[in-house]
């Protein structure tokens, strides 16, 4: 099991280097032309935070253990460089951290809050849903907390168990007023995080913790932003569209490669921003391929895949040649010993690709 994961890890790095840097949008090309250093995901996040604090004297980073660098080393060196007044530890109190961030942001600051694990975000759920998301609306635009960005590592790591592995993104996608963003790679993480920090809306930014050290690619050193609410076709194909986000894309990528060997051409889309999401890109792709598969780690029932599926049926009903398929986590609590069964693995996706294409 462990060796299998390691093997997967290594192959992912190769795939990510080859595949994800070959993207076709003009914005990406511009970035690719700049010389960059090879960085892993946590270093890319670290670089983005350095830039955010450097370019905006009203930006602050706070959370549990962040001034020591954080448990995943994302905030290393920030306190030394910008001082303990702008980068500071908080007590262990998630509700307090987010509420504090909302207040700080309401005064026109950039509040960058860290929740140590996405599994710990639930005590702060009330603050995010009732305070942050509705502040602008209920004050008739007098107040807002648009400067608030909440960073939280999410997802499986192979052996995290019940409380260090969950993917709670769908809960937040049900809340108008916030944005939810998930990056797939170091280069994406840096550009998207800077966009989130500078976006005039409160954003929840979920970082795939499996990839913190595993994913390595060239990341430009300069300050750049990637647009929110813009999905990206990271692999073009004609038979079926696959939609995903974050760490799951690397698994889907492998399924696409295997499907290719069976003569199936897959189009892979990274949604990047889950709310408000880029329906047009997905719609255009499904109109071309006639088939759609969505995959995420969170349980299938009520997951964000359900929303994508419903929207695409509304828009592409007559163009669909097979039912939309969701390959997601099972409807169980995130398990400890059964993680390999729970996960939406490459083979599950590959099987679903084949049965959808041969429907």
């Amino acid at each position, binding site marked *: 099991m462990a060796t299998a994961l390691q093997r997967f890890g290594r192959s992912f790095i190769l795939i990510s280097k080859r595949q994800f840097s070959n993207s076709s949008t003009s914005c990406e090309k511009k970035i690719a032309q700049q010389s960059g250093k090879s960085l892993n995901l946590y270093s890319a996040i670290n670089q983005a935070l350095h830039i955010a604090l450097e370019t905006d004297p009203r930006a602050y980073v706070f959370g549990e253990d962040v001034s020591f660098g954080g448990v995943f080393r994302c905030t290393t060196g920030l306190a030394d460089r910008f001082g303990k007044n702008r980068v500071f530890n908080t*007590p*262990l109190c998630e509700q*307090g951290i987010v509420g504090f961030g909302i207040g700080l942001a309401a005064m026109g600051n950039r509040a960058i809050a860290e929740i140590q694990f996405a599994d710990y975000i639930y005590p702060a759920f009330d603050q995010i849903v009732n305070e942050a998301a509705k502040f602008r609306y209920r004050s008739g635009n007098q107040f807002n907390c648009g400067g608030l960005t909440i960073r939280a590592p999410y997802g499986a790591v192979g052996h*995290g168990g019940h*409380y260090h592995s969950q993917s709670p993104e769908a809960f937040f996608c049900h809340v108008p007023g916030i944005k939810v963003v998930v990056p797939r790679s170091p280069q994406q993480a840096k550009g998207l995080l800077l966009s989130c920090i500078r976006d005039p809306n409160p954003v929840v930014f979920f970082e795939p913790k499996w990839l913190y050290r595993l994913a390595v690619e060239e990341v430009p050193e300069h300050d750049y932003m990637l647009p929110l609410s813009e999905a990206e076709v990271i692999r073009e194909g004609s038979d079926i569209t696959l939609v995903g986000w974050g760490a799951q894309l690397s698994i889907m990528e492998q399924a696409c490669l295997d499907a290719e060997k069976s003569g199936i051409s897959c189009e892979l889309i990274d949604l990047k921003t889950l709310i408000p999401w880029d329906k047009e890109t997905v719609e255009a792709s499904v109109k071309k391929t006639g088939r759609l598969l969505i995959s995420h780690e969170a349980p299938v029932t009520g997951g964000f895949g359900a929303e994508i599926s419903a929207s695409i049926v509304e828009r592409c009903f007559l163009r669909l040649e097979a039912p939309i398929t969701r390959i997601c986590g099972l409807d169980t609590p995130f398990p400890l010993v059964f993680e390999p069964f729970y996960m939406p693995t490459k083979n*599950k996706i590959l099987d679903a690709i084949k049965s959808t294409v041969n429907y």
Partner: protein
Amino acid sequence: MALTHIASSSSRSIFLKPISTALSSTPFLRRLISSAADDSTTLTIETSVPFTAHNCDTPSRTVETTPKELLTLFRDMATMRRMEIAADSLYKAKLIRGFCHLYDGQEAVALGMEAAITKKDCIITAYRDHCTFLGRGGTLLEIFSELMGRQAGCSNGKGGSMHFYKKEAGFYGGHGIVGAQVPLGCGLAFAQKYSKDENVTFALYGDGAANQGQLFEALNIAALLDLPAILVCENNHYGMGTAEWRAAKSPSYYKRGDYVPGLKVDGMDVFAVKQACKFAKEHALKNGPIILEMDTYRYHGHSMSDPGSTYRTRDEISGVRQERDPIERIRKLIFSHDLATEKELKDTEKEIRKEVDEAIAQAKESPVPEPSELFTNVHVKGFGVESYGADRKEVRAVLP
């Protein structure tokens, strides 16, 4: 020869039994019970430091004990220590997955508490729960099996390190989210008060969790309703890597209940813990909630991914080991009352090591849970979870 034979044959099953019953088979204790120092002998011991009280009386520093209790405490504490060291190696050998938080250094809290209460009193704690479970009568086999995710574990291998439970002994578990177990503890206490069964609940949390808002919400309810809830702050001085004074404006956790009385206790002295818990139980049954702050120390890092040496000095750790170690304190007491020789205690420790190794070997033999177990216990049986197959021709099976 015959005696050693009996001892070794009975020790094979020791790890299947709760620790205190397994004790009767240790050779030196048998010698002791049959010798002059019988059970009726009482020893008077002074706690290491006086208690500090907030809005309540202080219990007496003088504690009575028996030779049997002293030796039992030594054995139980040494078992806990050995067990955690073994868990450390199992984790490093990747036989334990998930997150693993070790209790070594804090043993006196779990055992002192047990010594003062009964199994009808409830205990609820966070994720540093291995030794609390052992104290409640759990077995080494259940512990190591659960740690390694095997069927013989106390949660059938489905919980892992952070999720130990023992319903029949009033152990409401192992909870993964910091501070979340304390409101639950107040609910337990209400049920106890309502049924008038004169029992109490000990809700344990750490110094990091002491800053969670829900703790104060729970405390307020408990005080309003005069619940027999005892909030035990196991203050090991570091909430993960953050020293208490960095995270708390007032690190006097026993005073933070304001209108709720509190007591500061040397959590490295098992008799001080015992005395305080006895006092707290009486207080809670009569007057409602009370906070106990146990001044203790963990030798390991917060979890296995924390080396535990970046935010505190090695001198600090070795200083606590030398000055305040709970096992060494008991060892000294045993010697000063001439209850056992150095060799006899060393032999006990060797026996414990063997029991732990045997329990690990047996736990490794236990199979991992059946794959169908992934779908059980999500809802009540009959309200099964749907599993989705990849091939839509034979999708949806409703599993038990």
